[in-house]
């Protein structure tokens, strides 16, 4: 008994630094947000208690509807392409292939670049006057390519999504490569002997065996989509006229440009609830093994 208590004490010492930082910069901000979401507050003067007023206002806010729609598009149109291209790249680059380290680096490097860099670079690429896309359009006569992708409200969000796919596909590839290392080679060997073609091997054996990787990427993808801020902020600032607004960019605008800290906190709380509920329901549906590395 004494031994056990001593071990628990040691364990707490091991955990202490992480828990302290965690309390200060994760738990406290959440509490703070919840509290501030009940105030009409500019962040400086004393706030005025409005109960659930901010939430009611948010539900009637057309921009809020836009952000939800954009998040839905983001989730739908980033996760699947990133997973499929990433998977194919991983299968191709998992074999002994000349230059595979170079290929891996080329596809992964966009993911490690700053969104500031990626945003500014793609602004230029998509620029209707100086951009590469427009130049290709003029050269080939495909006029549609010369349109202002980022400043047209009907295309802005999709252009940002496209850039996101360029940026993060290599990340999915790396995850799949890691997943492939865990597959027992004898399974592949056996399938080969049974005469499975490369395509069958990929679709019937590798893809199902990578279940945990799919789930991790799905979870990270949903959370990442909801959290998207930097890229959109640099590319479009959520514009034009909120057309590419995401929940985090809208939060930022409310808090730092419009000085409605109470309202911004309300958006944050809603965002957090949506993120937590969707993560929890995934963990509930699929088990938590894909996240914790435990066998389920």
């Amino acid at each position, binding site marked *: 008994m004494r031994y056990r208590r001593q071990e628990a004490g040691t364990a707490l010492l*091991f955990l202490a630094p992480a828990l302290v930082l965690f309390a200060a910069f*994760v738990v406290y901000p959440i509490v703070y947000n919840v509290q501030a979401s009940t105030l009409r507050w500019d962040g400086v003067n004393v706030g005025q208690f409005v109960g659930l007023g901010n939430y009611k206002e948010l539900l009637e806010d057309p921009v809020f509807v836009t952000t939800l729609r954009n998040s839905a598009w983001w989730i739908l149109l980033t996760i699947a392409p990133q997973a499929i291209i990433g998977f194919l790249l991983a299968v191709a680059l998992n074999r002994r292939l000349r230059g595979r380290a170079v290929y891996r680096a080329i596809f992964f490097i966009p993911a490690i670049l*700053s969104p*500031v860099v990626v945003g500014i670079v793609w602004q230029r690429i998509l620029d209707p006057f*100086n951009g590469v896309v427009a130049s290709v359009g003029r050269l080939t006569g495909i006029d549609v390519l010369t349109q202002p992708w980022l400043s047209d409200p009907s295309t802005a969000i999709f252009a940002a999504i496209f850039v996101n796919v360029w940026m993060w596909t290599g990340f999915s590839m790396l995850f799949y490569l*890691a997943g492939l290392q865990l597959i027992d080679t004898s399974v592949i060997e056996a399938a080969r002997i049974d005469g499975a073609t490369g395509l069958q091997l990929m679709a019937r054996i590798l893809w199902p065996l990578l279940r945990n990787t799919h789930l991790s990427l799905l979870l990270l993808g949903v959370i990442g989509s909801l*959290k998207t801020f930097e890229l959109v902020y640099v590319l479009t600032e959520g514009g034009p006229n909120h057309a590419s607004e995401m929940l985090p960019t809208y939060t930022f605008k409310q808090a730092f440009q419009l000085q409605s800290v109470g309202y911004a906190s309300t958006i944050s709380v809603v965002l957090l609830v949506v993120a937590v509920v969707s993560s929890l329901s995934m963990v509930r549906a699929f088990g938590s093994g894909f996240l914790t590395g435990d066998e389920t």
Partner: protein
Amino acid sequence: MTRRRYRPDASGRLHLVLVPLAALWLVPIVMTLGLSLLPRSNPKTTALGLLPESPSLSNYVEIWQGNPILGHLLNSVIISVPSIALTILFGSMSAFALARLRVPLKAVIFGALTLALILPMSSIIVSTFKILQSLGLYNNLLGLVLVYTALGLPFAVIIIRTAFLAIPNETYEAALIDGANRWTIYWKLYLPLARPALSVVVIWQLMMTWNDFLLPLVTLSDNALKPLTLVPLAYRGTFLSQPGALFAILVLISVPIVAVFLAVQRYLVNGLAGAVK
């Protein structure tokens, strides 16, 4: 190994697909490098706007002389390096406790940690700003280090814990019986074995600390303290007239992180897979 079984002609066909795809993927990178060589004297481009007509290194000289770039670069280092070190240390300590020790409320702690993985930076930015202010860490690089460490810990704990779990439990028990205390086991045995996982954490944490601009944008008012990522945003107006200099800065922001990535690249896949060396 299974690899010998692939038909010999398959890899040739693979290159046929991979080369064009890789080339397409590289377009933005090539353009960034190309435009960084675009001199102010001749802002004309060729090759679909990818390359300058008369390349020159003048922009690199200019940004070095015109802005306190070295200072901004140092700020980025002062933010990133300590935060990576702390995340590795605190993260691996927690991971050790969660993997091998009897922890009260283990599930709650683990669940709470994953909460931070979900938390968007923009949601905590206002409150973080207030906390840092009350701690006297507003407009201070240490404040950034602490926040990034807190936000990076969940991922670190998850990845390192997986690696620790892959180390046979018998090793741990044998060491205990030999009279090693838990701190020694953690430091001398577990930490070195988890090197691939640690390299993943290094890259992950570097991506957050080196690339983020929201937190410094809000918590640093002093221009001299700003990290490299804020330079393009801070001087956006100035750069409008000289895109070459802007792209040279973008290259400068990217070179260090790409270099670190190339250095640890060969560990990453195994590290993510939770393998131990």
